[in-house]
């Protein structure tokens, strides 16, 4: 600390508390709404303290309330989101780990060609090529499948690039030592590379889990059957301001449940997440 100025410190704390208020209030508002009755929600202003219908709302939403509205149970929506997020995170980590391993620790014709092929994908998010990618999925018969939901999102370069950067910092002596001890590439990968990469993998896992969980445009396109929707698409389909019969209490419960899992992942794995985020992007 450069100067000890209690007033400035107090101001800083007040500012941060105000910041937390901005950040947390929309979620808190939705949480309160999820504990109120539907008729209380549509009659503003709603109270700023939780209503008494929490167990009732959450219980009913899970036991068929949501299913009556969008034709798919809340558990199924949550399950789909989990499958998609984990498949994208794990799949992307595995394929990028392998390709970075090949590009850094082997010499073979077209090595740099492959690297550039992967690198170019860094630049183009799925949003700019939605129609043709959608067509590919239709042609492959992958509509409404987990493969269709996840495979196109695994084809991107961020993770490969991160692993490559990290592998390049591993001293050549280590590889040499492994080779002298007669370790083959797989042995080297399992006993040396993998343990060294644990923090990178953890960081990537958080970032990719969130990436998978928060997908919107892609799941919207490739799932037209309700039981394959992710929770975010399910939530979107429930929200209808023109329909007087929209069960707002179930909507709020679904919104809260769509927020909680990724928040838990980020908060619990915060240390790796922050390190990974700041280092991968820079």
């Amino acid at each position, binding site marked *: 600390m450069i100067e000890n100025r209690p007033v400035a410190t107090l101001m800083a704390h007040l500012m941060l508390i105000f*910041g937390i208020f901005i*950040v947390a209030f929309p979620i808190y508002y939705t949480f309160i709404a999820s504990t109120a009755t539907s008729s209380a929600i549509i009659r503003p202003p709603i109270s700023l303290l939780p209503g008494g219908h929490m167990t009732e709302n959450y219980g009913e939403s899970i036991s068929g309330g949501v299913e009556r509205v969008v034709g798919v149970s809340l558990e199924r929506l949550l399950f789909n989101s989990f499958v998609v997020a984990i498949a994208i995170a794990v799949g992307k980590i595995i394929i990028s780990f392998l390709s970075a391993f090949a590009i850094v620790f082997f010499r073979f014709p077209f090595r740099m060609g492959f690297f550039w092929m*992967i690198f170019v994908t860094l630049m183009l998010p799925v949003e700019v090529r939605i129609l*043709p990618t959608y067509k590919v999925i239709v042609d492959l018969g992958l509509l409404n499948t987990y493969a269709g939901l996840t495979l196109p999102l695994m084809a991107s370069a961020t993770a490969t690039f991160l692993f490559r950067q990290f592998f390049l910092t591993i001293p050549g002596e280590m590889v040499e030592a492994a080779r002298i001890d007669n370790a083959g590439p797989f042995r080297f990968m399992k006993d040396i590379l993998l343990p060294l990469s644990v923090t990178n993998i953890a960081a990537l896992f958080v970032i990719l889990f969130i990436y998978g969980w928060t997908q919107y445009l892609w799941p919207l396109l490739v799932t037209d059957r309700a039981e394959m929707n992710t929770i975010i698409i399910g939530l979107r389909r429930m929200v209808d301001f023109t329909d007087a019969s929209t069960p707002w209490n179930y909507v709020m419960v679904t919104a809260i449940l769509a927020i909680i899992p990724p928040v838990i992942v980020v908060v619990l794995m915060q240390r790796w997440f922050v390190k990974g985020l700041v280092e991968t992007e820079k």
Partner: protein
Amino acid sequence: MQSVVFPNKILPYALVAPQIVLTVVFFFWPASQALYQSMMREDPFGLQSSFVGLANFSNILADENYLHALRVTVVFSLATALLSMGIALLLATAADTVVRGKGFYRTMMIIPYAVAPAVAGMLWLFMFNPAMGTFAYILRRNGIPWDPLLNGDQAMSLVVVAAAWKQISYNFLFFVAGLQAIPKSLLEAAAIDGARGARRFWTIVFPLLAPTTFFLLVINTVYAFFDTFGIIHSVTGGGPAKATETLVYKVYNDGFVNLNLGSSAAQSVVLMVIVIALTAFQFRFVERRVHYG
């Protein structure tokens, strides 16, 4: 470049294969299809298509709706980036001065990162939609005719606020990292010379943060261009009267709703060019020129 390598000849191909296959099937093939289709025109039933060269491009560039979407996107991106970065910088400098509670503040600040853009949009919509939002109710009771479903400017401010809210976490973390990297000796020297907080900020901290700021500006623009589709789709649906129709939303709308494939593909290609330009700009310009450290 690793100097020591394994001698295998076939194995590396097997190792890169999964990624290359995915990249070719879901990236190069669709991208080339987009290029091809952007030069074709299909009849409305999709039965025939004919080569029209660059006509789709000249059509969209002459199309008032497209130019309108371009303007909307620029306004939306700039407003989102500036609002979010401004708040994040303010909070990051505050977090840099406090000692107690730092961890707690950071934990709270990263929460919006985990919220899906579409859900972030809905959270703000719950508070501000005219039918049931408490804040809409308060605004109206105070005589402000608040209705984002009819008023384009209000709809725009709602999506900007939701998009900026979601992005605060990201900007906050990067500004905190940027602030930590500033050598304390510089600030101490300035303090000894009698420069107070605000002056130190503008003459030392802010210039030294320039690389972070430029980096975030590019990232936030890309975010506002692409990742906010969910916010716009779930909050305004591009309306009212196309007031919040961004370029990505228009690609989706023309391709999947209006089924105008040629135009949608041409728009995709324009978007690709924009992203490539932004990324190249970031790599070339930002990384090299704006470097004081």
